[in-house]
């Protein structure tokens, strides 16, 4: 089976600091793949490079066979690769409605934008109640829903979520997990970046482990759950995801 997203020896850095070295990974059509690793491992750096926010130093990134290495983010999205960034990067001073409408900005999102908007509001009824409110006034969970809904407006074929559970209450985390499952069932391929390893391994069929900028392990869910290094390092600390203040 061919991969929709394929990274070959990608190295990314900030100035002269190399944050991710020689990372290779692949996601097949319809799969949910997890990328797990501790704080500062380079997860955000890697997905930012995939989405076009950072330019890799070397290596290639292919999306549906097309080389997208170094392509700017707004063009990557048009091709059908969406990233939901870490930390709910909303436009806090804009209304919920404006945030959603901006999700429909791309050329890709334009046909059928209004029906998509209705679909999102049906799926996230809390957002419908708060359409006129400033996005910055929403609760953490609502903000996460809004970021997800906003990106879905462009109907991405591959969706990357960067720590969607970060800082959310367990009940909301469950809701997020459910949404990811639905997205996947609609045929979207998903790359899920998480520190919440139980959640990640629950949703994903395969996972990559990244530590200190390098992909150190990979395998199916079951393989990884057998490994003592994983259970000890990640499942032991899962009640403290991200170490929020």
């Amino acid at each position, binding site marked *: 089976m061919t991969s929709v997203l394929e990274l070959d020896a990608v190295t990314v850095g900030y100035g002269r600091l190399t944050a991710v070295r020689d990372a290779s990974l692949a996601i097949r059509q319809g799969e949910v793949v997890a990328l797990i690793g501790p704080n500062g491992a380079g997860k955000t750096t890697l997905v930012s490079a995939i989405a076009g926010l950072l330019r890799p130093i070397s290596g290639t990134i292919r999306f549906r066979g097309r080389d997208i290495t170094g392509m700017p983010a707004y063009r990557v999205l048009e091709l059908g690769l969406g990233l939901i960034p870490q930390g709910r990067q909303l436009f806090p001073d804009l209304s919920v409605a404006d945030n959603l409408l901006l999700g429909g900005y791309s*050329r890709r999102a334009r046909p059928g934008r209004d029906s998509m908007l209705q679909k999102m509001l049906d799926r996230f009824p809390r957002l419908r109640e708060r359409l006129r409110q400033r996005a910055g006034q929403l609760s953490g969970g609502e903000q996460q829903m809004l970021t997800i809904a906003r990106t879905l407006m462009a109907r991405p074929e591959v969706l990357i979520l960067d720590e969607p559970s970060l800082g959310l209450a367990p009940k909301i985390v469950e809701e997020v997990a459910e949404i990811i499952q639905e997205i996947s069932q609609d045929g979207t391929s998903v790359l899920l970046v998480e520190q919440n390893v139980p959640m990640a391994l629950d949703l994903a069929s395969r996972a990559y482990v990244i530590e200190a900028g390098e992909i150190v392990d990979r395998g199916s869910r079951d393989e990884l759950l057998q490994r003592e290094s994983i259970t000890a390092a990640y499942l032991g600390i899962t009640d403290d995801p991200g170490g929020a203040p």
Partner: protein
Amino acid sequence: MDLTSLVQGGASGALLASLYVLVALGLTIEFSLLRIINFAHGDFYMLGAVAAYYLFAEVALPFPLVVVVAAVGGVILGFLAERTLFRRFHEDLLGAFVLSLGLAWVLEMAVVGKFGAYPKGLPPVVAGVSRFGQVAISNDRIMVIVVGSLIVAAISLYVTKSQVGRAMRAVAQNKDAAALLGINPVFVGTIGFVLGTALATLAGALVSPIFSVDPQMGVGLTIKAFVIVIIGGMGSIPGAVLAGILLGLFEGVGGIYVDNAQLAVLEFLVIILFLILRPKGIMGSAEA
């Protein structure tokens, strides 16, 4: 304190307010999108006024056409300036400032060479004065206040309701998040710069029948516009509108009681106080 002079002061305040808001809007939009401060902004305004002088007083085009030509010229000027000069300085406050300082000097001196260093006046567009009881206001001033307010309203509407305007506000708040939704921040930044420049040249043409035209007229206004942008909150459009109106009225009414220099010192004290007590300005957002 008598009412007539107060109303008279209010009327000159409204005139100043229209001018200030038009000019400050461009500055604040450019800052919000590109994180630059264009010191030559007031000189773009000056160019609009100089162009109006030639087109209206010498070529004798109808005034509305003069204003449109100035605005279109601003679009072209803004596009060229952004592409050739400012493009490399996005997010580089110091660099952009120094560059635009040089540009401001070049523009001023070039105009001195062609136009001469001394102020010139334009004939009135709508001759005569209108009387409201004891208060007399020249028709030109009324025209500027009305047209200026309409343009400000149109811009506000555009920025809040159109998809491009929404994208501008998105880029201003979070550039990366905007890019992830398919918005090209560089393109949106160019639009903002072009819009800001066109507003400045348009303002220059619009007020040229009232204030005399000279090559130095831009610098003072650049400073005023900075003040408004600070007080309104760097990058905030409603803030700039509100602060522009306040400053205009303050100067219009205050001008009855104290002289300009005292007014300026007072304004400075207000800014300092403002920055200490409310560093984000009246409408400043979380990210400025």
